[in-house]
């Protein structure tokens, strides 16, 4: 090189390109023949999710098919990304229920606070990640869709020890 780059004098074994190459080739060959490859063949083998892994939402349902949600408004209040839209309604017995309950999964950051704050354990985050869609609109999940989801829900705490004692 034209400019006098300072090059530290090192022993030959540290600077030799030949030895470095041979060493490297031995290493790559060992990896080449290594039978075990730590690869998950994804569509065939699904990863094991941690119990607290959080994915798309799921609305719990009563035995008669009504949503458990009582439209208290806590989840849209606590939601940090403001992705839940709730329009509450009241029937003639004075029971509150959601007229509109929508979650924009694009805005959602999957923090799980909605599940944590829900007094009736209606809304849950779930263990689901295969949620690709063809249009953006499809990512706004309405109440029917949330109720139809059937994947397992996330355990935000140990159910036998809810206060962490």
């Amino acid at each position, binding site marked *: 090189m034209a400019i006098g780059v*300072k090059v530290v004098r090192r022993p030959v074994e540290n600077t*030799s390109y030949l030895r*470095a190459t041979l060493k490297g080739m031995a290493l790559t060959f060992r990896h080449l023949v290594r039978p075990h*490859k730590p690869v998950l063949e994804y569509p065939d083998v699904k990863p094991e999710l941690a119990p607290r892994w959080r994915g798309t939402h799921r609305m719990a349902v009563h035995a008669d098919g009504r949503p458990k949600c009582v439209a208290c408004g806590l989840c849209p209040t606590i939601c940090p990304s403001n992705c839940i839209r709730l329009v509450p309604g009241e029937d003639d017995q004075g029971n509150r229920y959601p007229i509109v309950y929508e979650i924009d999964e694009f805005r959602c950051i999957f923090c799980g606070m909605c599940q944590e704050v829900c007094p009736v354990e209606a809304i849950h985050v779930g263990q689901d990640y295969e949620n690709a869609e063809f249009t953006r609109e499809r990512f706004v999940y309405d109440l029917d869709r949330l109720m139809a989801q059937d994947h397992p829900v996330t355990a935000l705490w140990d159910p036998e020890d809810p206060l962490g004692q």
Partner: protein
Amino acid sequence: MHEVGALGPTAWLIAAVLKVILVFTVTLTFVALWTWLERRVAGWIQDRLGPNRVGPFGLLQPVADGLKNILKEETYPGAASRFYFVAAPMLALTPAMMTMAVVPFAAPLPTPWGLVDMIVADAPIGVLYVLALTSLGVYGIVMAGWSSNNKYALLGGLRGSAQMVSYEVAMGMSLVPVFMLAGNVTLTQVVWTQQEGLGLWLALPLGLSFVIFIIAAFAETNRLPFDMPEAESELVAGYHTEYSSMKFSMFMIAEYANLTTSSAVMATLFFGGWDIPFWSGDNMRVVSAGVVEGAAPSVLITLLTLAAFSLKTFFFVFLFMWVRWTVPRFRYDQIMHLGWKILLPVALAYIAITGTGILVLDQMGVAYGFTFGLVLTAVNVLATGGFLWLLDRDRVMSGSWITQQQRQERLAGLGRRRHGAAAGPPSGEEPAWR
């Protein structure tokens, strides 16, 4: 001598056409296979699996890729020179596909119509044809880089041409000892030399030639550690940055065809070609049309030698891939350093050494044969050992270096210039403000 009988003109024509079709198809098939193998080898080396989903073991992956490339949109850069832009991939692909023609791939095959040599064209210029065509391949690269009107592509093309020119010289020079020993440039003669003439694979008496040749071959095929024209991390995709769909694919096919050819040529020149080691039953050559010297040709021997040739070629292809996924890319100045300052002088010196060896042995009356080869092997071991020892101590990796004393001198010089002789204090005195 075995009289098998020469082919008639019609049979010769049919055989020639069949051989052309066979070699062309097999090369293309293997090119497709290499694209799959390359990714699998890369995967295995990196503790992954590589493409394994299309067909058994992912073997149909090249088919899927080909289909995809044909269906993809062909883009033309607005400011590109359209004619050369289209011509470049063809220019890269054609010479790459033509080179296999002079490589003998098996022992001569006896048929009811006469003897068929297992070589498409036993051209008298042999290796020179290979050298000429491989150097033609660079035109495709340069043209692609230039006509794309893209600065990355242009840089890739420039680097490609510089690198090809540099290593072609060393490559040609490294082959001179081979010609000196074989006495001819045809590859059939080189194979015969290794079978009977010397009875030794030329990698033994001419190992240094082989080392230089393989390094130059890596550079000529633009494979890592010499993939300067492509250099993903520096030049996006180098000379084929602007290419899409099948035109891009043609560059890839050309690259892998070159890979196959240079592997085959290496196997032929230095590792006996289709010769099966430690067995003289396959040592034969065609003396004149239909007449074979040495062992009797048979279909079985043809098949066995074909297998031996394929195995040797496969080994070199694997070596190319293995090196690619191990060694990082050279810097440009390192490539020039290696090509001009190391390989070329060493190749020239080795011509002198081998020439002297041959001359001395001739003068001493040692007959051309196995002993002759062994003596040259001893000379070669010394030469190769010395070369590797020197290369080991050459700082290819760290650029130029200066001794501590030189460094002090340069720093002192810098200091003088910075303070200036006129404005500074008289020499020898410490400046007062320090």
